[in-house]
């Protein structure tokens, strides 16, 4: 799938009131704006002028988007690895459990699915690209790609092998297609050889990809 990303210039005019629109002044270094970049600029500006939202709200939302990263997911996973009670609460309700750690995972319900010695989970959204963004940030391109969305339900082991992950045949590979309002997060198995590790050290082993399920957490062995 063609991904032609020309980098548009972010522009918040900083006015909350309706005003005469001033001409958009991009830097000379910018490549020409695409039709959709122009559309994005125009729509945002019009919505601000109409009072649908303010420039400040838009700015704050951009900052909120940037603030989300897989680190938040790594924290809840590390806590679950060290605290059985927390793990049980996490499996019940990720949003609530995240809030215990001061993480705002938003209003859309997120469910954790637990990897065990006998089950390995992997998440996909075949219909669009649903993803627990409000906990772990924006998804990678490949998660949204035609190849991932088409093949993960049909040949999950082959897809995982492309990520370097081979799940033994005696382990059940369970694919979750996020078709409705719930988002899914894989709770990976705690790697062996991490006895006595601090939560912070454990969180360092938890990658975005192992919370999607295409990989295992990092190994503790250097």
């Amino acid at each position, binding site marked *: 799938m063609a991904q032609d990303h020309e980098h548009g210039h972010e522009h918040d005019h900083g006015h909350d009131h309706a005003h005469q*629109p001033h001409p958009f002044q991009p830097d000379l270094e910018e*490549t*020409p704006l695409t039709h959709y970049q122009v559309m994005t600029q125009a729509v945002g500006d019009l919505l601000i002028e109409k009072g649908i939202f303010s420039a400040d709200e*838009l700015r704050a939302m951009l900052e909120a988007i940037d603030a989300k990263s897989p680190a938040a997911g790594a924290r809840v996973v590390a806590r679950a690895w060290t605290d059985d009670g927390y793990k049980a609460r996490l499996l019940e309700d990720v949003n609530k459990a995240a809030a215990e750690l001061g993480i705002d995972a938003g209003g859309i319900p997120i469910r954790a699915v637990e990897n065990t010695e006998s089950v390995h989970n992997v998440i996909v959204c075949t219909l669009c690209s649903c993803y627990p963004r409000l906990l772990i940030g*924006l998804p990678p391109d490949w998660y*949204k790609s035609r*190849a991932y969305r088409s093949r993960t*339900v049909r040949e999950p082991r082959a897809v995982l092998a492309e*990520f370097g992950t081979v799940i033994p045949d005696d382990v059940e590979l369970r694919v979750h297609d996020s078709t409705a309002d719930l988002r899914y997060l894989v709770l990976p198995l705690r790697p062996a050889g991490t006895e006595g590790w601090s939560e912070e050290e454990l969180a360092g082993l938890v990658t975005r990809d192992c919370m999607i399920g295409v990989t295992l957490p990092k190994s503790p062995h250097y």
Partner: protein
Amino acid sequence: MSKETKGGSGSAHRLLRRHHDMGGLPAGPVEPTEHDYAPWEKRVDAIMRLLGDGKRRLITTDELRRCIEELGPGAYDEMSYYERWIASITNNLLEKGVITVDELGRRMAQIGEAWPAGAEARDAKLAERKP
């Protein structure tokens, strides 16, 4: 129509499967591509989150998805992820009368005119500005 449909290549059901509904279709390797989201892409995402929040409830996730699906099959080959989003958001806003086609067109022309797309026009402008 048989009750138990087998998931083969789907050729017999080509017309029954909508183009966005791609689970199980053949595809090439998963290219592990990533990119840092461009500011305009995050702007699209931010706009959607604001439009859908409790204060506004102007566009639901369902409406966003539905309009993306209605962009047609070419959208998946010709448009990037956030291009599909802004196209859908815009169609939704037009349908709901939040913005009009006229004002959007005028504003886009204004923004577009300030920086015309096309390498030739850009190079000409660059040449103009050189001392």
